[in-house]
Structure formats: structure tokens, C-alpha cells
């Protein structure tokens, strides 16, 4: 049986607390067209103090716990850590302050797109280019299919854009 996963609940909670973030990882790739399955959400938050405070409130509402069962303390837990893995009542949530090959939120937000997901949600999702960039830098064998899919999405979207330009 699949683990509970309710991305709408996680995203609605983040939005309600006015957290600024960009969605990356498996869920971001699915939104771009990848047909992989995922059990969680990966986000890159703005690491400004006020935003971390809001994120902390959202995590509290989602009953987020670290793998050791303790509640996260963001300002402490994010220091020197690549990824903060959490379990919430709505599934896995990974906080990634600076994904490989990027300079974090301010780097990704410029090309991120607000994607309509229903239920009034339009989260900011990292671009397909940035998803490919992150996977390429990690250079992990297990990411190869996801990287190939993102590269194909970019090619197809690029082809579509080219087609539009040619029609004009």
C-alpha cells in the first residue's frame, strides 16, 4: 500500500503561511511532463529569516518530524546540511536550501513558472532546464532516466517554441 501523500495539503499549507519557495525534484518533473512516480515534495525555500519563520509555522501545522522523530528547528537544521528530510502527515517533504549546481532560491526563482495545479494552487516550479541542470551536476546513475526525460521535455518544448516563432 502506498504511503500517504497529499501534495495539495502540503502546498496549501505553505501558501496559507505565505512561504516563498520553488518546487523541485520528482514532483517538479511530473508537473513538467515526466511520468515517474513520487512520494514526496522537494522545495527550495527562500532562506530569509522571515520566510524561515513562516516555513517553521507551516511545518508545525503539517506535524513535520525529522527521521529521528524530533521536530525540526530550521535555523539550526539547515546549517551545513544539503537536504533536510522530513515526514509530515501528508507525506515526505524535503527542504533543500541550495540544490547541487544552483545558488538556491534566488537562482531558481528567475526561471521558475507558476503552474496551475487546481484547488486554487499555482506554486512556483523550477524550470525544466534547471531540473536537468540539477540532475546533470549530481551525475548519479539512478537519475539517468529522469535526466533523459527532462532533456527530451526541453527538446520538445524548444521544438514547440521554434514552431511558434516560425509561424509568426
Amino acid at each position, binding site marked *: *500500500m*502506498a504511503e*500517504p*501523500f*497529499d*501534495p495539495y495539503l502540503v502546498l496549501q499549507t505553505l501558501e496559507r503561511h505565505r512561504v516563498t519557495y520553488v518546487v523541485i525534484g520528482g*514532483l517538479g518533473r*511530473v*508537473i*513538467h*511532463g*515526466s*511520468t*515517474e*512516480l*513520487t*512520494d514526496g515534495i522537494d522545495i527550495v525555500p527562500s532562506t530569509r529569516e522571515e520566510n524561515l519563520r513562516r516555513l517553521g509555522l507551516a511545518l508545525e501545522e503539517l506535524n513535520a518530524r525529522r527521521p529521528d522523530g524530533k521536530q525540526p528547528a530550521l535555523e539550526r537544521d539547515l546549517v551545513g546540511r544539503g537536504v533536510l528530510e522530513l515526514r509530515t502527515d501528508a507525506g515526505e517533504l524535503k527542504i533543500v536550501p541550495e540544490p547541487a*549546481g*544552483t*545558488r538556491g532560491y534566488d*537562482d531558481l526563482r528567475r526561471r521558475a513558472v507558476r*503552474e*496551475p*495545479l*487546481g484547488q486554487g494552487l499555482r506554486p512556483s*516550479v523550477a524550470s525544466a*532546464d534547471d531540473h*536537468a*541542470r540539477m540532475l*546533470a*551536476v549530481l551525475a548519479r546513475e539512478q537519475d539517468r532516466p529522469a535526466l533523459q*526525460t527532462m*532533456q*527530451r*521535455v*526541453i*527538446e*520538445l*518544448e*524548444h521544438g514547440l*517554441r*521554434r514552431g511558434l*516563432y516560425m509561424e509568426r
Partner: protein
Amino acid sequence: MTSGTLIRQARTRSGLSQAELSERSGKDRAQIARWERDVVTPSLETLRELLQACGFDLEMTLVPYQPPDPSDEAELQRALERTPQERLQAMLKARGG
């Protein structure tokens, strides 16, 4: 991967702005922006110059071409015809959630 992705990847990995890359490479900043957006495609020589200005080089080797699996390609095409909302809901349905 497109040439635009490669240029942006090299530029951001070296921490350069488009203006700084323009200064280093002697290319027009607006043209760099167009290359990065894949509005136009630079020549191979220009691409290499840009990457070198970022501190990287382009290593090219011939490898056997593996066309995309037709069923994977068809699945991806179908996914791209859906809206982001439909893609998310299809994934949630597929995982039984």
C-alpha cells in the same frame, strides 16, 4: 540538451551574470540572452568561446545514437498534451493515492 541550457549552466556555475560574460567573451549581452533562451543558436565555435569564457570547455565525442523508445516517447507526448494539473492527478492516480 540545448546550446542555451549549456551556456546558462556554464555561466551560472561560474557565478557570472550575463553582463560579466558579455565583458569576458566580447559578445553582446542581448545576444547572450537570446542564445540562452534558444531563440537563436550560436555556431559551434561561438558556443565553445562562450563556455571557455566561463572557465569550461566543450568536449565532444561520437557515441552511438540511441533513439528514444517509441513507447516512452508516446507516453511523454501524451503527458505533454495534458495540463500540469492533469499530470499531477495522473501521477497520484497511478501511485494509488
